[in-house]
């Protein structure tokens, strides 16, 4: 009996210690026992694999991601001693959750991306970002290949250096079905806002949804507002909102929201747009059920694929119409600029290998492959693209993108309040559910005021 009791006590203790040991082993792979196992397998400390973790938006099954994965595989084959952990997420919300967890724990991925530039100063101060200038200078062939505008986007006021490698760029414009516009009596794509409203009337009269928009994925309304904002106020105004020298409730800013309200009143969107997801709206455009859609170059691959877009042949691209009253902002455009950022705390061999991987991902060869096989634009100059391998839509996108005199990404990109992405997009969405432009503007401004 006594023996049984002792045995049970022993088992209880073992379980407790086991639980503690399991908790204490952490993420390094099992502590001493793991090391012993490694040693037995002939992979001691000296041969321990260097881990390179990536946190990008390159996830899914698209052609773009296939090329990205191909480059990663190439790197793996070249460096079998390196373990690649790719935590990349296609979903924006999932991506943001991982990024904020990394920032809170201080365990940043080797290669990652941050949306916007307003908070970069804070990240630099915390050592999260590497100044890539020395590496760009050390390898001029690679370093000088980037479009200067895209590279300078990641220069931070008050800090010397460049804090990201741009990996994606391109005009966010209006993709439209030329034939559908012509059938409705719109012979030429509207160049001005008034012409756009007239075209919307004609399209409605012809029974076609003028603009495809799935506001349940509220970035679509956000991108539409970005277009209107830059055409009405220019790109500097976004920076002024960010540095608080301008308010969302200023009449000229409210007007940008009012223009969205005007589009809603003009029945520019599907009546169900507010509850529709982006993919549903895109499918409507791809099937020729909607005449126009505001989107970026990442959709070119799909728009030119006959299987995915039955009416792909008549799709054209144009800049968002400008306002006659503001001709000075005619070529102030929204463009996408996405980066690869490098963890500022890396050192030694790990840093060296991470830089090498970034170079592979942003080389001229990669840019050529991305362009020719996935219609994806990287901000790299003098890439020898075989024009027979790319579509006219892709070439048009490159051509139009090069004419931008002012470039802005999302308006909230210049705001250091991280809640502004949600706040602005949600308030823009509220315009679709009955709020006035003034109410939406007040709601956004209240977010800023309450954070003071």
């Amino acid at each position: 009996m006594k023996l049984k009791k002792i045995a049970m006590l022993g088992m209880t203790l073992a379980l407790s210690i086991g639980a503690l040991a399991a908790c204490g082993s952490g993420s390094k792979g099992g502590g001493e026992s793991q090391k012993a196992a490694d040693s037995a397998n002939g992979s001691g400390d000296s041969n321990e694999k260097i881990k390179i973790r990536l946190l990008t938006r390159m996830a899914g099954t698209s052609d773009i991601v296939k090329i990205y994965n191909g480059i990663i595989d190439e790197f793996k084959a070249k460096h079998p001693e390196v373990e690649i952990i790719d935590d990349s997420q296609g979903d924006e919300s999932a991506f943001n959750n991982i990024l904020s967890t990394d920032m809170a724990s201080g365990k940043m991925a080797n290669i990652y991306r941050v949306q916007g530039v307003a908070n970069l100063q804070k990240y630099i101060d915390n050592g999260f970002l590497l100044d890539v200038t020395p590496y760009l200078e050390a390898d001029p062939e690679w370093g000088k290949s980037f479009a200067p505008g895209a590279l300078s986007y990641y220069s931070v006021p008050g800090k010397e250096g460049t804090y990201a490698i741009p990996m994606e760029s391109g005009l966010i414009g209006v993709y439209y079905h030329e034939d559908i516009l012509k059938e409705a009596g719109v012979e030429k794509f509207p160049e001005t806002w008034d012409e756009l409203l007239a075209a919307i009337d004609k399209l409605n009269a012809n029974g076609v949804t003028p603009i495809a928009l799935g506001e349940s994925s509220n970035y679509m309304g956000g991108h539409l507002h970005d277009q209107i904002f830059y055409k009405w106020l220019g790109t500097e105004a976004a920076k002024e909102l960010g540095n608080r020298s301008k308010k969302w409730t200023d009449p000229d800013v409210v007007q940008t929201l009012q223009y969205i309200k005007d589009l809603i009143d003009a029945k520019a969107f599907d009546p169900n747009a507010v509850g529709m997801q982006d993919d549903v709206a895109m499918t409507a455009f791809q099937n020729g059920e909607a005449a126009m859609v505001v989107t970026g170059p990442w959709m070119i691959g799909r728009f030119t694929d006959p299987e995915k877009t039955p009416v792909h042949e008549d799709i054209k691209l144009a800049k968002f119409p400008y306002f006659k009253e503001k001709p000075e902002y005619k070529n102030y455009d929204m463009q996408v600029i996405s980066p690869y950022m490098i963890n500022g705390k890396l050192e030694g061999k790990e840093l060296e290998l991470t830089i090498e991987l970034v170079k592979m991902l942003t080389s001229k060869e990669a840019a050529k492959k991305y362009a020719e096989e996935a219609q994806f634009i990287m901000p790299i100059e003098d890439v020898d693209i075989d024009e027979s391998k790319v579509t006219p839509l892709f070439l048009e996108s490159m051509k139009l993108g090069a004419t931008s005199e002012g470039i802005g990404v999302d308006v909230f990109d210049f705001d250091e309040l991280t809640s502004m992405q949600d706040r602005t997009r949600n308030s823009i969405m509220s315009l679709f559910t009955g709020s006035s432009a003034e109410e939406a503007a007040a709601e956004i401004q209240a977010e800023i005021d309450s954070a003071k």
Partner: protein
Amino acid sequence: MIKLKTTKAKFTIFLFILPALLLYTIFQLIPIAGGIYFSFVEWDGLAGTKLTFVGFDNYISAFHNKQFILSLSNMARMVVFSVLLHTPIALLLAVAVNAKLKGYRLFKTIFFVPTVFPMTAIGLMWYFVFMPTGALNTLLTNMGLKQFAIPWLVNKATAMNTIVGVNVWAGIGYYMVIILAGLTVIPKDLYEAASIDGANPVQMFFNVTIPMLKPTLIMCIVMDIIGSVKVFDLVYAMTSGGPNGLTNLPTTLMISEAFKYSHYGVGSAIGIIIMLICLVGTVGSNTLLNRGRRVD
């Protein structure tokens, strides 16, 4: 009752409790303590940055936030409708199933099925039903009732109510099974005695079944209150708290504040408020339960 006479016996018991205690401390008490601590500091979510003690500012800020007030009102609606509908409907279904009419096993399974599915799957399924071009609106349109086809999860009048309705639907089977278990232990003698006294089935239901089920019903209500306060996955799958925060619950808002906006202090304060609401709900309902037992 075993009396613990010796220190050795007490030590033995302590050792047996130790594993569970350790797990509870590591995974419950320490995170709660951390949450309480973070609710009193301001931190921008960056490792290595200074944590500033701000007293109750995060709590004040939460209560000044219109979104939080809206989320509390949504939570209240969720709790009230769940309590008002879950237990009574589950009780009626349990009594019907317990009557063992023809095909009762099939109905029991049908009623219980939603409980088996993960809430996220249920959320997605109902999202596809209620989306603007979803099954419900298609059905209404095909029936010539197009005027009733509205964006259910976007419309201010219907968005939260739709989610509450789905939550009620999803939970009924669970409470039905609990009540069914309670029904099976009611002695048959009581019904026989009532029958001899001339009671009809309705009288037996109100004078035998309900009183005998009282502890079970109160337990269902307690669990329902706590469960409704903690709903997260259903809302996250159906609307993510949108449009424009219309369907936010404190749980979804907490995630947004902490992880989307890097307001860790406010997010933690909301977490602690949720915990306090659960605590008040538990203590309040336990008091009810004990009172019920004394009456019995």
